[in-house]
């Protein structure tokens, strides 16, 4: 069982974002970067599949700047066997461009399963995994909450409006992981030390702009301060009134 997990380095969701002087990018100084949280589920699933099958290989693949090596080391610390960094300082807003670079790496490398997080929390495009499957002509199931593999086939469950959809597909395939797929492990401290010794291949890649450019980034408007309309059951009518007329949510 050879499994690829595509992962991305993203700003920590707790980080307070500052927009740069150009108005088009965020200031990276002082921003903490982490492994995209949904990718953690993808890595965990890959590791569990490998552990269940008793052998195989889990390869963590990231596209990004040299700093993404740290992100890959994180996956190696969790237990992935080796890493590949498709290195570029360019940033594309077009998911097709990114997907093409990843697909070129994945194509013909003999992976039985390719995992992604359902989206990256930085640009939330929710597209790269699915486009990769299209480029490779592989079946794909997005935002899965459960996965079983047996006899060259996979069964995945995904939450849909008001229910659960169960999808069967042939391998190789691409799946993207939703929250709840599993409980990602903490890297064991020994794993962190060992990650340094695992192979991490760096391959420079070229990235087109994909015909899309960022014109402007803006922070959401500051939320106005909350207001206490009263206390106890007597305050309910005033609250309903405020929600209806001021907040206009009812």
């Amino acid at each position, binding site marked *: 069982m050879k499994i690829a997990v595509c992962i991305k380095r993203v700003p920590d969701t707790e980080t307070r974002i500052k927009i740069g002087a150009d108005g088009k990018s965020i200031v990276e100084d002082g921003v903490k970067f982490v492994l995209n949280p949904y990718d953690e589920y993808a890595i965990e699933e890959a590791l569990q599949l490998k552990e269940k099958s008793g052998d195989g290989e889990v390869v963590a693949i990231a596209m990004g700047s040299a700093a993404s090596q740290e992100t890959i080391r994180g996956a190696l610390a969790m237990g992935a066997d080796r890493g590949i960094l498709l290195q570029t300082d360019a940033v594309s807003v077009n998911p097709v461009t990114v997907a093409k670079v990843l697909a070129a790496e994945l194509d013909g490398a003999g992976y039985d399963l390719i995992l992604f997080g359902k989206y990256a929390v930085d640009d939330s495009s929710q597209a790269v995994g699915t486009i990769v499957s299209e480029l490779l002509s592989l079946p794909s199931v997005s935002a899965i909450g459960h996965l079983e593999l047996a006899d060259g086939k996979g069964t995945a469950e995904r939450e849909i409006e008001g229910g659960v959809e169960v999808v069967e597909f042939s391998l190789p395939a691409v799946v993207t992981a939703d929250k709840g797929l599993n409980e990602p492990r903490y890297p064991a401290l020994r794993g962190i030390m060992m*990650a340094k010794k695992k192979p991490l291949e760096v391959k420079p890649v070229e990235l087109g702009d994909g015909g899309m450019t960022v014109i402007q980034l803006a922070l959401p408007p500051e939320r106005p301060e909350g207001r206490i309309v009263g206390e106890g059951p007597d305050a309910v009518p005033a609250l309903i009134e405020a929600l209806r007329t001021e907040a206009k949510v009812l």
Partner: protein
Amino acid sequence: MPFQGLDFLDVDSLLSEEEKAIRDTVRRWVDDAVMPIIAEHYLDGNFPMGLVPQMAELGLFGANLPEEYGCAGLNNVAYGLIMQELERGDSGVRSFASVQGALVMYPIYAFGSEEQKRAWLPRLASGEAVGCFGLTEPDYGSDPGGMLTTARETDDGWVLNGTKMWITNGSTAHVAVVWAKTGDIGDQASIRGFIVPTDTKGFSAKDQKGKLSLRASDTSELVLQDVHLPADAVLPKSKGLKSPLMCLTQARYGIAWGAVGSAMACYEEAVSYAKSRVAFKRPIGATQLQQARLAEMVTEITKAQLLCVQLGRLKDAGTMRPEQVSLAKRNNVNIATEVARETRRLLGANGILAEYQAMRHLANLESVYTYEGTHDIHTLVIGQAVTGLSAF
């Protein structure tokens, strides 16, 4: 909000990528597993035993001991950072790890036979067995050389008699490392360490009731009444008072780091509260008095952080001296206690609640101030080191 830590002087630049990754992993685990439950355990007065398998899984026990015995084999800076993060959660959680690693696994590693190491270290590293360390007695705390516990050699082993007091993990432990005199009661050189399975006949432990500090920690009294042990229960390389003191040096090293963790927890709480609490129509953080408090905290914590990193590098180089550990334990626990107290005060009435951390840390640190050599005793250790004269 996850814990952000404090790094005013870019002390992080003194750490390797792996050291930082280890710290961040433990930090995240403390946020996820310790913070949601710790106040309740503190109020209930018990240690969260459910954390033990998770701590073992991460590799926190005896993390600076070699991999061949099931340990993580980390360097001492990484080990110290672990202690810092654990104590950021609660001194009781750090105490558990300190006792297990520095006071139980270390003596077995340093003074034990190969069989003892193989028998106990992997079980202690995996959390399958919990250990405790029995040195202090009701009448001998700062002066453990006066201990009255005895070990008499018989034809087929040893018989231990005595009482140990204030023993962390005492009621929880599967195994106790007990220090006893094998010779004359006046003979400190006859002190040796023994591995005592706690289910041995004649061994009993009783929870120390009424603690107002380290409430999320098991502190117990041990009674050894004609405890018969096989000949191989003695730690063969233990010899004299120096042996338990060597264990204490290990544990104190971790405490020096741990104290910084609780200080950082309090500091973060203080800053956040100072910025959000409004009095006289402005945040209290905009007043000079509260800024002076915060400036003092950030200064002392930064100094303590630097002390720790340097001490850790010395320990990794094999040149660290016990009086240097005394200096760090004494200073860091003292400033952490001050930081906790000032935070408690800055928080006003909220500062007395378990919902906030400051008073829990403050109360805990009063124990940390006393155990592993009181502040006073470390003063005397440093005094002796600089004058060559003993003032004990």
